């Protein structure tokens, strides 16, 4: 495996041996290591000194179920700290087939040259790198861009691309990847990595793995044996069926039951319309509607869980794929919208613009509190999204996410930490996830360590410190392996399968605690980057109103002690 380094200004590619210090990391951990080694932590995130890193996880490349995720990393324009966002789809698999341990995109494409628009497409294959003008796709949404690029470069390529929001360098812009059906739905959504790609004047990166091969395996027999155990444990697990049938939207009724479903700009933890946006209702609806609707869908080739879906409208025609819990929470209950068709249409628009549905849902919630729309008014929400497409000042404000919207619109109830919006778990009701929001080097992000599924009293702040710490370590470990969070329950049936797989793949002798070793190392690297960027304990704090304004129905506040928060990573 090699590190591929592309200098965008010079339009040159160097293929380098993997430095010793990087060889035992992948995904999120490797991205953190590279950023710490190569990017000045105080740099301007949208300037030429920031780098965009793509790193497949350590286990990517073998069609191991739920383990082909790709990590994107850079200094975030949203949090202004370190950022990693990962996605399923085919990008990671193509990269490893091409022998890429990591791809580092440096500097910025020239604004002049052959591309009239000043925008470029980077094409990578075993023959090397070539740059082509993006003139015919610049300004287009991702749903129109992806088919054009597939037509030009062949149906088999993988693509990482940005939408108009990334081109405008809006802080809520993500980077989309093709799923196994070539839909650009797999977004590394959080923290504005699409804006970083936009700042480099790169509309898309094409990965053509023709002539490539799977990465080497040190001990093929041992890998096969461990893979079989892991696959069977995942397949046999009762939760696989639940995720296949209901997917992440199963969380709507769960969170509502705990009083932790963000409602009307995080002002209540229960939504009277939860039933009609629930996963159970969605499944009934999609089964009735048929057509292109799918209640079960795989985002990565080889996944046996297949938690994704295709949401079809009344005519059975697909409105969006997938429709996930976080989106339903932020664009449904958080906006007072109880109709899944409306949520699906909002989701499609936001995805087409290349934006993060979580930060956009939170921004629209703030906009509603400011009086720019009524809660429950989906048509008005669509109009506000149209402002983003037009690039109006209001649209740009919203496209920068909830923190910017709150500042400009004079709203103090803004559900963000480190400038990034909270996911669909109210921190005053699910305090472990709240603790993760506050302390994660990534800013508010449930994927950094969600505790809603833990058997713990979610209202007991003290008890949830350890739960959050454990979840954050495990998730940083899974993100470094390239494993989906839902691979977790398959792994946990027999945790020794993790070191077995790693040792068989690489010929190493890692111990039983490798997941936690990788997780702690990753978090340590990320915290060091943030420290160098100027972060202090003052950045690890919840918005003030969440400490003082009780949240119905439990009338609870976020009351984790500052000393507990500040010592959470003292291991």
């Amino acid at each position, binding site marked *: 495996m090699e590190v591929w380094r592309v200098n965008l200004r010079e339009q040159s590619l160097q293929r380098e041996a993997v430095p010793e210090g990087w060889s035992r990391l992948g995904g999120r951990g490797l991205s953190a290591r590279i950023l710490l080694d190569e990017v000045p932590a105080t740099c301007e995130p949208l300037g030429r000194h920031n780098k965009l890193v793509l790193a497949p996880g350590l286990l990517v490349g073998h069609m191991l179920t739920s383990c082909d995720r790709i990590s994107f990393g850079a200094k975030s324009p949203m949090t202004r700290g370190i950022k990693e966002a990962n996605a399923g789809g085919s990008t990671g698999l193509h990269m490893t087939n091409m022998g890429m341990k990591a791809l580092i995109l440096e500097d910025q494409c020239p604004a002049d040259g052959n591309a009239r628009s000043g925008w470029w497409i980077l094409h990578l294959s075993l023959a090397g790198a070539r740059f082509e003008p993006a003139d015919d796709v610049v300004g287009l949404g991702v749903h129109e861009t992806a088919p054009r690029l597939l037509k030009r470069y062949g149906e088999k390529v993988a693509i990482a691309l940005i939408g108009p929001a990334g081109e405008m360098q809006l802080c809520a812009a993500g980077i989309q990847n093709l799923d196994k059906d070539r839909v650009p739905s797999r977004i590394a959504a959080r923290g504005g990595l699409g804006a970083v790609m936009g700042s480099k004047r790169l509309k898309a990166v094409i990965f053509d793995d023709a002539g490539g091969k799977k990465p080497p395996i040190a001990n093929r027999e041992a890998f096969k044996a461990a893979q079989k155990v892991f696959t069977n444990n995942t397949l046999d697990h*009762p*939760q696989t069926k639940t995720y296949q049938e209901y997917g992440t939207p199963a*969380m709507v009724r769960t969170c509502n*039951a705990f009083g932790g479903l963000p409602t009307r700009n995080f002002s209540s933890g229960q939504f009277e319309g939860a039933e009609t946006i629930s996963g159970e209702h969605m499944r009934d609806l999609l089964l009735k509607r048929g057509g292109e609707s799918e209640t079960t869908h795989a985002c990565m080739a080889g996944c046996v869980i297949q938690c994704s879906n295709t949401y079809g409208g009344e005519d059975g025609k697909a409105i969006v794929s997938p429709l996930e819990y976080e989106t339903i929470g932020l664009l449904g209950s958080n906006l007072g919208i109880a109709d899944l068709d409306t949520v699906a249409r909002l989701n499609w628009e936001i995805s087409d613009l290349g934006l993060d549905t979580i930060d956009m849902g939170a921004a629209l919630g703030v906009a509603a509190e400011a009086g720019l729309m009524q809660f429950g008014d989906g048509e008005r929400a669509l109009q506000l999204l149209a402002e983003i497409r037009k690039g109006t000042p209001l649209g740009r404000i919203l496209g920068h996410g909830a923190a910017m919207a709150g500042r400009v619109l004079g709203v103090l109830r803004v559900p963000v930490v480190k400038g990034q919006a909270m996911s669909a778990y109210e921190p005053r009701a699910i305090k472990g996830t709240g603790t993760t929001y506050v302390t994660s080097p990534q800013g508010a992000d449930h994927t950094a360590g*969600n505790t809603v*599924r833990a058997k713990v*009293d979610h209202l007991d702040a003290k008890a949830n410190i350890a739960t959050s710490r454990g979840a954050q370590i495990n998730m940083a470990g899974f993100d470094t392996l390239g494993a989906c969070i839902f691979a977790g329950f398959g792994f*946990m049936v027999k945790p020794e399968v993790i070191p077995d797989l790693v040792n068989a793949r690489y010929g190493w002798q890692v111990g039983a605690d490798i997941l936690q070793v990788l997780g702690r190392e990753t978090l340590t690297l990320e915290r060091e980057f943030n420290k160098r960027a100027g972060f202090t304990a003052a950045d690890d704090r919840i918005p003030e109103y969440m400490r003082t304004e009780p949240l119905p129905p439990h009338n609870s506040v976020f009351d984790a002690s500052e000393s507990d928060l500040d010592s959470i990573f003292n291991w």
Partner: protein
Amino acid sequence: MVNITVTVHLHTTLQRPTPKGPLRRLDITLPMGSTLADLLDRLSLPRRDDSVLLVINGRQADAEQVLHDADEVHLIPALSGGVPT
């Protein structure tokens, strides 16, 4: 004997199939002093099953907990992922 009535919310795979579609919310009347375990018996669900989260009035509960009139009970097939076990 005085009875209590609790509202039970069945989640995902615990929903009951009916000719009108899946049933996910039902009221159940039990003798006063009944526990969550008694309710699980009534629903023919295993008493000790780590694969189901038991929630009473928004708080996680255990099977021995005594039920009260008008309690809202959620039975949720556990969905793990990422959290330490």
